[in-house]
């Protein structure tokens, strides 16, 4: 394929352990190589600069999602689970599910949750910090960034308390499945069927509590806005995409503050910065690092032609640190920056439909922490958890000085 080879070639495997542990050097190399890069390991074209990633994300007509947003091409191979009606669907099939979910998760709809989540966050922070004074050491991942979403989000969806511990491994395997069939996927495979079955079982009408997002989705089916058989798959989208991503976004946020102490002081002085802080952390660490699309025709981008039916790989994390867009300080976490327009939630018709939920969770947790913690710093080096799609964490030891 001359069109593929005429782009600068990079041999590195973006899904190997070293890169997953620290993707920043490869991101830099990809951006420098050119607007469109040929990844020889998978024989696909990739974009790492903001301009091309943004352009490809919004062009749903040229770059479809329905052939899968991972490396697997659903035109040629069957997916491991029934495709998502949102993430892995194009218009017109994508329209109704998206419309229903967008309404249920809109900022206006979330207003009723706000007070409760702020109170929940305060309660959790009080449990974790206790009535201690001086300096406290915590592992932020299990104690805060996993426990807070797992405390509020499944309740908001309306699933029972039992079995919630399955949500994280299910999401982890799902996001691994967007990459190549490597050892990460293999490690998840033995439990995949069981986790999928559990998740699917939570999406049934009779399981979901009244008043939750899940019941709202079934109500949309009763109104005829979606078909009844679509409702469980849309609930599944919430459970698939709503937990791991938020957990890692929150971890990124606390890691950012611990490593940029001046920014914590700034937040304490102006707690209204909590909202901007989360988006800046999502820009800076990009919990969702990469997504694929498939060209629907020969399509030109960045001066190259992507042939019909070919997968492209968009490096969202790299675009979010592109100096061409963010300036020389792109690698810094900076509350003085306007992170608007980052592609950490995607862009266009597939832009993260749960982004307002994630922002509210982050605002609640950060507000509660900022009230009690005067200073944050790393207590030990953080430990990454490797995932083919997510910039993910296993442990984030922090030392907090109580105010």
């Amino acid at each position: 394929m001359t069109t593929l080879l005429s782009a600068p070639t990079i041999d590195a495997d973006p899904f190997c352990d070293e890169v997953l542990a620290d993707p920043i050097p490869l991101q830099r190399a990809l951006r420098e190589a050119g607007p469109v890069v040929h990844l020889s390991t998978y024989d696909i074209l990739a974009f790492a600069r903001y301009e091309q990633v943004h352009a490809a994300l919004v062009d749903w007509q040229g770059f479809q999602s329905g052939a899968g947003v991972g490396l697997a091409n659903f035109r040629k191979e069957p997916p491991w689970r029934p495709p998502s009606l949102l993430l892995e669907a194009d218009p017109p099939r994508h329209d109704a599910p998206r419309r229903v979910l967008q309404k249920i998760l809109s900022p206006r709809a979330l207003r009723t949750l706000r007070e409760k989540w702020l109170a929940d966050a305060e309660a959790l922070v009080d449990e974790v910090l206790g009535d201690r004074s001086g300096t406290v050491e915590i592992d932020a991942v299990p104690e805060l960034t996993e426990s807070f979403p797992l405390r509020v989000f499944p309740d908001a969806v309306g699933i029972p308390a039992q079995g919630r511990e399955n949500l994280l491994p299910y999401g982890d395997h799902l996001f691994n499945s967007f990459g190549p069939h490597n050892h990460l996927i293999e490690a998840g495979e033995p439990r995949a069927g069981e986790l999928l079955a559990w998740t699917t079982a939570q999406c049934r009408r009779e399981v979901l509590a009244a008043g939750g997002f899940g019941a709202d989705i079934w109500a949309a089916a009763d109104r005829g806005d979606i078909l009844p058989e679509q409702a469980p798959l849309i609930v599944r989208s919430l459970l698939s995409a709503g937990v791991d991503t938020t957990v890692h976004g929150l971890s990124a946020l606390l890691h950012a503050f611990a490593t940029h102490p001046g920014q914590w002081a700034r937040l304490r002085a102006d707690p209204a910065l909590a909202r901007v802080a989360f988006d800046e952390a999502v820009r800076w660490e990009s919990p969702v690092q990469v997504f694929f699309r498939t060209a629907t025709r020969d399509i030109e981008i960045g001066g190259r032609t992507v042939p019909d039916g070919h997968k492209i790989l968009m490096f969202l994390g790299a675009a979010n640190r592109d100096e061409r867009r963010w300036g020389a300080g792109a690698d810094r976490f900076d509350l003085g920056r306007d992170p608007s327009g980052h592609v950490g939630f995607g862009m266009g018709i597939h832009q993260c439909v749960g982004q307002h939920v994630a922002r509210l969770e982050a605002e609640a947790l950060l507000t509660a922490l900022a009230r009690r913690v005067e200073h944050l710093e790393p207590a030990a080096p953080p430990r990454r958890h490797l995932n083919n799609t997510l910039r993910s964490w296993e442990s984030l030891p922090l030392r907090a000085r109580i105010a």
Partner: protein
Amino acid sequence: MTEVVHAKQSRERANAGTARVAAIHTEADGVVSLVLTDPAGGRLPDWAPGAHIDLVLPNGCTRQYSLCGDRWDARSYRVGVLREPASRGGSAYVHETLREGELVGLGGPRNNFPLVPARRYLFVAGGIGITPLLPMIAQADLLEADWSLLYGGRTRKSMAFLDELARYGERVRIAPQDEVGLLDLPRFLGEPREDTKVYACGPGPLLDAIAVTTSGWPRQAVRTERFTARDRAAGVRDTSFELTLARSGRTVVVGPDQTVLEAVASTGVDVLSSCRQGTCGTCETTVLAGRPDHRDSILDDDEQQAGDCMFPCVSRALGDRLVLDL
């Protein structure tokens, strides 16, 4: 004391929500279609069948028109405009004065009439009511749903887009009143069926007749839209207005070539945004006083009427002054 800052105007682009009239075509007696493009040649905001836009005409009139083009073409919109006999300046202006190449203001798209999934659709159009149904039909066909259209009008010559519908053959029934009389709705709609949705758009009497004919149907199976565009107050989007940020005590003048978001940023106040197209909801801001001129794709018509919040990446003010909770 408030501090007045005259914000710098952004130079790269015209107004958020400006379109160029790229072409005007005669579609039937008394019907023209407008093809609208972004003056800078970029993408226009995404839409789905049933969506309408607000068109702000150079004479200040704001009118709503259903989009009836091809959503796979991201660089143009098409609307059909019927010359209303009792026009108060909207359709008469489009038919008599508007010329190719002119700029018009654009709001939305918004969708109060979305196409929901079904195995079978029955479409009923009266006159210019065909416009929102055209893209619905294209999609129903694409999805290989079982569908048919009953399309009525005064005379064959007054009915727009007949040539485009011709390719669907048997599925389309053309019923001009001077040839076949009133539409035979009971016969076309038949008995209610679980798998069927009815979509209808047209003048009041037609929709009333559909309501009577389908009175025994489940309510959610029948979806209608009246094409008589609801008049809105004339937009003042192209002039400056004063913006007060209540919490920070700043006042700024929003210039004609700048968004509210840009004006707010120029005072040093941060509003988080993302899509900057009025589609994602990130920049939602509470309105404390003044009437917003909504240009977003998020709020439905009732929510827009409430006027208690707005999306400053695209929306402006109807009056001389707006107060936001910022």
